[in-house]
């Protein structure tokens, strides 16, 4: 082979590898997507070509599945968790970003470290406490404990965004007689708004996909979507067409949100360790 042929061969090989990788990445998603539009019979006959039906998306909302209740619970739990987390995290992130605090490094490392504590360790005492004070199977209980998951990410992400805002505008406003609170409300918040929005979406995805806490703390009233997946079992086995329809309802909104903030997804997960 000449040098040019060799290069062409390499390029073709790379394209084939990339397409194969993309295919492997998408196949479980495509498989669920197809099954969600199949009838019960078509799922069991492994058809690739079939007459699509949207019946499954209706069935999952009906009795005995009532997926609508779980959808409501997931939305409220994830939404309220974010509404609590973002303002609290923003205050802390501003302080960490602009001032030097006694024990700042210790606090930041501690906040980072809490993310690595296995969820099963956190849930044991909370289960006992929630049982004693009657917070088992409530949305409130779930919201409180979801804060454990999202807070560290929210603080680190928002701190990153505020670090990126030049401090000069703030200083100029202070010289002109603004108070610190006015500076935060009138200058920092509008400039950090896109960052807060991004952090909010990121935390919403985390809370939405949360599984272990909801599995242990809920059983009827406060069941969220991922736990709701366990509903689609019958005596004869899993009802895959319904499971898949429920799967689409869980993942499709998250795909949209993740694509909106995709540029910040990686930074968010690594909490600034990788830029």
């Amino acid at each position: 082979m000449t040098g040019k042929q060799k290069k062409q061969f390499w390029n073709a090989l790379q394209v084939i590898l990339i397409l194969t990788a993309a295919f492997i990445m998408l196949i479980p998603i495509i498989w669920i997507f197809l099954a969600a539009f199949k009838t019960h019979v078509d799922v069991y006959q492994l058809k690739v070509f079939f007459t699509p039906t949207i019946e499954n998306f209706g069935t999952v909302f009906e009795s005995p599945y009532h997926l609508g209740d779980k959808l409501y619970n997931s939305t409220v739990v994830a939404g309220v968790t974010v509404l609590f987390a973002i303002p609290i995290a923003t205050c802390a992130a501003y302080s960490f970003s602009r001032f030097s605090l006694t024990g700042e490094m210790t606090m930041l490392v501690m906040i980072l470290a809490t993310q690595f504590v296995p969820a099963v360790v956190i849930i044991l005492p909370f289960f006992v406490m929630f049982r004693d004070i009657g917070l088992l199977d409530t949305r409130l209980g779930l919201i409180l404990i979801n804060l454990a998951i999202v807070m560290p990410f929210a603080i680190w992400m928002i701190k990153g965004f505020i670090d990126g805002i030049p401090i000069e505008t703030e200083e100029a406003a202070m010289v002109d007689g603004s108070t610190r609170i006015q500076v935060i409300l009138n200058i920092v918040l509008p400039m950090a708004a896109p960052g807060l929005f991004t952090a909010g979406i990121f935390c919403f995805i985390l809370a939405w996909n949360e599984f272990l806490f909801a599995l242990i703390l809920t059983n009827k009233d406060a069941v969220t979507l991922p736990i709701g997946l366990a509903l689609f079992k019958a005596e004869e086995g899993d009802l895959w067409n319904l499971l898949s329809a429920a799967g689409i309802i869980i993942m499709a909104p998250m795909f949209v949100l993740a694509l909106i903030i995709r540029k910040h997804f990686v930074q968010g997960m690594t909490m600034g360790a990788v830029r």
Partner: protein
Amino acid sequence: MRDKSLKYVLVLPAVFVVFATAIWPLVESLRLSFTVGRLNRPNFPQEYLGFENYAWAFLEEPAFWNSVQVTAIYTLVTVVLTTVLALGLALLLSPGGRLRSTVQTLLILPFAMSPALIGVSFRFMFNPEFGLFDAFFSFVFPPLAHISWLSDPTLAFAVVVMADVWGWIPFLTLVLIGGLASVPRDTIEAAQVDGASGWRVFKDVTLPQLMPVLAVVIILKTIFSLKTFDQIYMLTNGGPGTATQTLSHYIYFSGLKYGQIGYSASVAWLMVIPMIFLTYLYAKHMFRKG
């Protein structure tokens, strides 16, 4: 309010939340681990046992050692496979261009999927009668058809590993692409001009420069592998038998299914110790750069 006091007032709510949702449960778990802590008995909390729960785990429970072994192998295999494959994919995708950036965008999708749902989708694909894998093998290699993947201990373990690797490659790839972008192009070009082969350039120039990012990726993936619960619960529920029972799953079962909160808290704390070490490594890497 003066900045001097305001700066502490601002961090107070966040510190309180982190304390209440992470530090308190850690300490309380440690306390529970020294008690009998059976859920079905009244007057919880119960009498103190000292280190009896720990001794029980170490000496009397083969199931504990089984879950330690499963977790160790699982972590080792998933970390190595995910890192190597993600590095390969990152090298393939990093040059840019339309095809490559489209695939990069698609990589976000598996990562936005709930791990529980990943477990469900793999259980679906590996169904022995109508799963996708079965269809694939009946077509290309019939002897492998109609195998009930999830009933065989070794195969079930392999499926659990596959699901994990599938779910984590996209994220690790995206992080590594970011890392590759910060490797200066001129050093690579200089090496190429000097006539170094592609492999030599990678080994002597790219890889050393990528080391800090690679270290972060490996530590992070190790932590997440050690914690794995959601997919396993949905995919095999630890089975067949206890072939895929990780530590998290074992703690969940002994604590909340069998109601032995005290005992499972002691196992949970045995799991926290390596986490503290890994977190220390992670924080060290992180702050060395800044």
